[in-house]
């Protein structure tokens, strides 16, 4: 238990710093690289939550594909690779205010609702087979819908980005 808590603390600290860097850093490519750190940290937290398959999917899809897409987007829109001062809106006060109010409300509600509720000491592992069974039985209809969403996204992205 101690080892889990210590590793949670370390990973959470890294994720928090990296997340703040993603939204404050003045360089698009660096923001994408800090995002990799947040996403990999999230995958590690999923392992702590006994969700191996989701963790592996997270690494494959997010770190492997989505960050590469972001880097391509940066390249194709010719954002400057170096520092850039035009990345933020002139007034940050609204953003800071909304984020702080939201953080305060969420923290209050969560602490009020779950005080010190503990998670199971040795949780039952959810195997990949269980997830597969569930996807192809209980959640088959959302799975079909999701297939259509992905198909539509594929066709839509090609239609939008194609040069006529």
């Amino acid at each position: 238990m101690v080892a889990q808590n210590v590793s949670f603390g370390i990973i959470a600290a890294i994720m928090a710093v990296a997340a703040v860097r993603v939204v404050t850093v003045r360089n698009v490519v660096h923001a994408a690289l800090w995002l990799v750190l947040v996403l990999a940290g999230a995958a590690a937290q999923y392992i702590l939550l006994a969700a191996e398959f989701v963790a592996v999917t997270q690494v494959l899809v997010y770190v492997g594909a989505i960050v590469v897409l972001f880097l391509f987007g940066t390249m194709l829109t010719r954002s400057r690779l170096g520092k850039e001062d035009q990345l933020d809106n002139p007034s940050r006060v609204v953003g800071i205010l909304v984020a702080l109010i939201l953080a305060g409300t969420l923290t209050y509600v969560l602490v009020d609702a779950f005080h010190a509720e503990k998670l199971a000491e040795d949780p039952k592992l959810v195997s990949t087979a269980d997830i597969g069974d569930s996807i192809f039985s209980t959640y088959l209809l959302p799975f079909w819908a999701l297939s259509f969403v992905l198909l539509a996204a594929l066709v839509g992205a090609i239609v939008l980005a194609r040069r006529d």
Partner: protein
Amino acid sequence: MLINQFLLLGAFLFCTGVYGVLVRRNAVLVLMSIELILNSVNLNLLAFAMRNGSDVSGHVFALYVVAVAAAEVGVGLALVLLIYRNRRSIALDELSSMKG
């Protein structure tokens, strides 16, 4: 482990993402902030799945969120590319031509 440590980490990521969406001007960076928000949601889904005796539903929903996020980034970046091609800039506050 407490459930709250995961939920509070998720809440922090969510607020950071909201701050990024509100403050960033560059459309690619706004999409990155949306990824932060989606990840915080996944963290919550998996924490509650573990709380409810390793419920499989939470894992399935987390996987669906990952898939939807991938589709969203694909279409989002195609839109950003289109905007860049037409206007030579992806600063979101300059996109006010739909304002009456």
